[in-house]
């Protein structure tokens, strides 16, 4: 039957229905004349129509209702599922039910999120639940409800998560008015949590007062990532690939939605900033900024209305708060804070301006800080009692001899002691990097004294003694190996009061020492007085030191720790420097982690903040130098910062490392070599310092020496791949293509980060097909979640001799301030492009152009 036939059947049928008896017959006979099958069809339909008395007239709903009624709602309370005993239902949502349960294995209360009744068997819903668990599991943050795991037991699939007691933020808003201090406490925690999520590429999309819990202790926990989306890094900047915006999908809770969310536009992180603004307003004003009687009016208000300024703020400067909230609530996302981190910094600013300051004393951290002070005073007193000229001291690495690796960070006290003591003009403390390889348990003080040329060494061990955590420190005279001091500091919270008294007594007893009168000297402005901040700082240092561990994202953990330190002590200059270092190295360590332009913005904020707090902080100036040279190509200003850093402390390897890179890329090769060697001498155990010397030689086109040096270094540090990578590039210049290929093939097989290097080599060797395969691999990487610098593809195009594409890639890299561009002028890789006008333009852009450049 064709549509036309069906059409005519229908027309005739309807005409015929209205006719009766003979009239109908006549009509049918005329209309269907000569078409017997048509006539038959119509007649059979009419017959069917006449005979079906009440067919379909009784809707099926009644039966449907009964079916529905029979499948009553499920409540799991009282059941035991695996080790979990379900105690009560905490709440229900669109997709899941949350229960309070006892975990009988670990003897703790947990919250379990099940898919609700009808969804329990739904594969899609299960996938969503797993996705939610995975998203939150990525977020290890004190202000995000922790996911312990996801279980599949029998027919049940459920998320096991932290059980949080407390009130939701919406209850708090209803119950109490809030003052400036509380406001800052709460909002910083929320923003910190959201910043952590964003850093993992997760947009929450459903931030609202009801999704935020406050524990009785005042800790904030952000809940419910059920709507969160993990977005690709490449979509951060608004490419239209976002999953969320497909076909105008709108999810969220209307009153907290951003204008773009309501319009079902592409969403990026800034939608969360708007929602945060809504919460902040509510928190401060006690009422919602946009909520109206109907949804239509609410939507209209979000899209068009400016919320009324908040008139009264307890103890606060309303202008400042209004400005902050207004900026979050900008309709145009380009005018809002551009990231949660930026918002956090702003909140910190406000806190600084606020007169109210809280100091929390945490038992353990207080003791660690106290221990550090006691050691310092002991040290000072003993050394200074005889001091007439500067004394030399080496602090050997403190070691953790407890079974718990979580105590590792306490060993970083050594570094903070170094920082304090090296500020003194009467004491010459050897850089820690020089002594890193000494094992405090296996030392000959006299020998070390000779090697390091020091008069005394300080050793430290964290041990467990009688169930107590003890930091045992010894000061040893290197001329005769005699112990000048032995100090045990017990680091246990439960003993807090005793130890506090104990330590106080010791401090008092030492007040007569010559040091006491000079005590202020040791209190440099870059330190903290807050024990908890100090504890976080130590943890950050520890993670930073171990950032080379490929298995863990220690850089991120370090970031969090420094960040926490700052949250507690806004004036902790060293912690800001720690953050600056992290953001400087981040784009080069991990492409996916962060785009250079974002990272560098943050690095700069932190470095400048550190300098503002302590103009004499060497590391902060070094960091600023690195930012200015590596990313902003402001060579003159950058060099000033490096020089200042060296002037402030001539023993910091990292400064020389960055400075040498700067000198090399600006064609000052001899100086560069000197500086790179200095860095290596100061930090001999770190392979990157060796690599750096090799690279400086490579840039100076002293390939033979570079090869020799790097070959030796590779033997010494076989596990450190970047050394091999560098050697590969040197081989290429030495026309040892087979050797280079060997290296890159091996590297790339284990780590895709070397794909461009291998592709370049293939291209150079005329293996076009393989080179294109590598290009393909890069493009595959690009399609996934990874951010890929344009520079990588350009490298392969250079190998292939495709200048136009290579140059286009470099230009793109320039637009995102890609750090790799600093070497444009000196890296032999670019020699083939050098004569091109566009290449020279790029060189001009990064301020490296010279009057005559002939190579």
């Amino acid at each position, binding site marked *: 039957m064709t549509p036309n036939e069906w059409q005519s059947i229908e027309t005739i049928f309807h005409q015929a229905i209205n006719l009766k008896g003979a009239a109908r017959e006549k009509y049918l006979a005329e209309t269907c004349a000569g078409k017997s099958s048509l006539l038959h069809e119509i007649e059979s339909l009419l017959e069917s129509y006449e005979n079906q008395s009440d067919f379909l007239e009784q809707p099926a709903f009644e039966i449907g209702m009964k079916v529905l009624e029979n499948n009553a709602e499920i409540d799991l309370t009282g059941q035991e599922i695996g080790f979990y005993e379900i105690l009560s239902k905490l709440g229900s949502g669109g997709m899941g039910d949350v229960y309070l349960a006892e975990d009988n294995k670990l003897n703790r209360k947990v919250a379990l999120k099940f898919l609700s009744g009808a969804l329990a068997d739904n594969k899609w819903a299960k996938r969503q639940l797993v996705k939610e668990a995975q998203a939150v599991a990525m977020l290890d943050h004190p202000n995000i409800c922790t996911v312990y795991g996801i279980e599949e037991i029998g027919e049940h699939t459920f998320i096991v998560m932290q059980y949080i007691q407390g009130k939701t933020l919406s209850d708090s808003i209803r119950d109490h008015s809030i003052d400036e201090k509380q406001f800052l406490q709460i909002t910083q925690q929320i923003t910190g949590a959201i910043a952590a999520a964003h850093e993992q590429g997760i947009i929450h999309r459903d931030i609202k007062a009801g999704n935020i819990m406050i524990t009785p202790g005042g800790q904030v926990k952000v809940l419910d990532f059920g709507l969160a989306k993990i977005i690709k890094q490449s979509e951060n900047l608004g490419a239209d690939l976002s999953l969320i915006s497909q076909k105008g999908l709108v999810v969220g809770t209307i009153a907290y939605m951003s204008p773009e969310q309501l319009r079902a536009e592409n969403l990026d992180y800034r939608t969360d900033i708007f929602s945060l603004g809504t919460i902040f307003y509510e928190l401060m004003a006690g009422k919602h900024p946009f909520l109206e009687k109907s949804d239509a009016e609410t*939507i209209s208000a979000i899209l068009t209305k400016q919320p009324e300024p908040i008139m009264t703020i307890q103890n606060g400067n309303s202008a400042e708060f209004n400005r902050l909230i207004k900026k979050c609530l900008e309709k145009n996302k380009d005018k809002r804070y551009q990231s949660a981190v930026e918002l956090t910094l702003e909140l910190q600013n406000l806190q600084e301006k606020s007169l109210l300051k809280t100091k929390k004393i945490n038992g353990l951290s207080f003791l660690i800080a106290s221990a550090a002070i006691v050691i310092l005073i002991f040290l000072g007193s003993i050394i200074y009692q005889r001091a007439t000229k500067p004394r030399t001291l080496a602090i050997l690495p403190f070691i953790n001899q407890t079974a718990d690796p979580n105590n590792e960070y306490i060993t970083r006290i050594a570094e903070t002691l170094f920082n304090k003591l090296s500020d003194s003009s009467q004491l010459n403390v050897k850089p820690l990097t020089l002594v890193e390889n000494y094992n405090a348990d296996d030392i000959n003080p006299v020998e070390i004294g000779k090697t390091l040329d020091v008069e005394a060494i300080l050793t430290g061990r964290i041990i467990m003694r009688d169930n107590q955590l003890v930091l045992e420190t010894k000061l040893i005279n290197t001329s005769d190996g005699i112990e000048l001091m032995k100090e045990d500091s017990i680091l246990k919270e439960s003993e807090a009061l005793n130890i506090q008294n104990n330590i106080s007594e010791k401090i008092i007893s030492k007040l007569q020492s010559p040091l006491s009168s000079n005590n202020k000297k040791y209190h440099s402005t870059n330190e903290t007085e807050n024990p908890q901040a100090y504890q976080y700082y130590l943890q950050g240092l520890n993670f930073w030191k171990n950032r080379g561990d490929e298995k863990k994202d220690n850089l991120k953990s370090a970031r969090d720790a420094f960040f926490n330190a700052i949250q507690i002590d806004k004036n902790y200059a060293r912690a800001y420097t720690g953050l600056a270092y992290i953001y400087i190295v981040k784009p080069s360590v991990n492409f996916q982690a962060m785009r250079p332009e974002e990272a560098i913005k943050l690095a700069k904020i932190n470095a400048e903040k550190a300098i503002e707090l302590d103009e004499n902080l060497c590391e902060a100036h070094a960091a600023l130098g690195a930012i200015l040279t590596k990313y902003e190509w402001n060579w003159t200003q950058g060099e000033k910062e490096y020089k200042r850093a060296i002037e402030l402390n001539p023993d910091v390897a990292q400064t020389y490392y960055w400075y040498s890179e700067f000198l090399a890329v600006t064609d000052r090769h001899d100086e560069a070599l000197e500086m790179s060697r200095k860095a290596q001498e100061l930090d001999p155990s770190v392979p990157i310092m060796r690599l750096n010397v090799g690279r400086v030689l490579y840039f100076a086109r002293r390939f033979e020496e570079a090869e020799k040096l790097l070959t030796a270094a590779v033997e010494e540090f076989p596990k450190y791949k970047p050394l091999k990578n560098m050697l590969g590039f040197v081989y290429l210049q030495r026309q040892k293509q087979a050797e280079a290929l060997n290296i890159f093939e091996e590297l790339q097989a284990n780590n895709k980060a070397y794909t461009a290097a291998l592709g370049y080599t293939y291209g150079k060797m005329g293996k076009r097909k393989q080179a294109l395969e590598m290009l393909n691999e890069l493009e595959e990487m690009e399609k996934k979640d990874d951010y890929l610098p344009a520079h990588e593809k350009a490298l392969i195009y250079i190998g292939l001799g495709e200048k136009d594409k290579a140059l286009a890639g470099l230009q793109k890299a320039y637009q995102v301030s890609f750090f790799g561009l600093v070497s444009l002028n000196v890296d032999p890789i670019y020699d083939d492009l050098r004569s091109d006008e566009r290449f020279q333009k790029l060189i001009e852009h990064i301020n490296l152009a010279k009057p005559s450049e002939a190579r």
Partner: protein
Amino acid sequence: MEIVSCNTSPTEITGLLLDWSNGDEIALEKLLPLVERELHRLAHYQIRRLRPGNTLQTTALINETYLRLINQNRVEWQNRAHFFAISAQLMRRILLNYIRDQKRMKRGGNAVQVSLSEATIMSPQKTDELLALDEALEKLAAFDERKSKVVELRFFGGLSVEETAEVLKISQITVMRDWNMAKAWLAREIRNDTE
């Protein structure tokens, strides 16, 4: 609130509805279980409240479900039509799934486990009739989708002629004509099939 935990939030629904209304069929697959759960809950609640002799109106129920799922704190979804269409489709699915489950259980020898109330929800005759209707509707949809929709909305969704017209954006006269024609065709189809 005394004890709170990581709560769930029922916010996917609006988005999925919009998605589906934009032609994404997968969204419907995701949506159905969500709506079913809510319908379910409400039906259960309402039936308990009903005074003897009163019957529950499907439209009222769906309306309330819609209000609960969509209208509270959520985007005003301009067109309720899609929701009603979904509910009708859902009801059809609930019934047919139920029937198939029952049949499967009986085949598997599990009949004893079926409680009395469940067993008497539908007569075997009614059961077969619904299965046949479902099949016939599929056939009809193959060449005249609109007519099958009209039947689905009116029979499974319990919608009036007026509401059906609104959902499908056609005139009420067209709804009536489609309804009559579809009934004639379906009745014949089912009869032919069973004979």
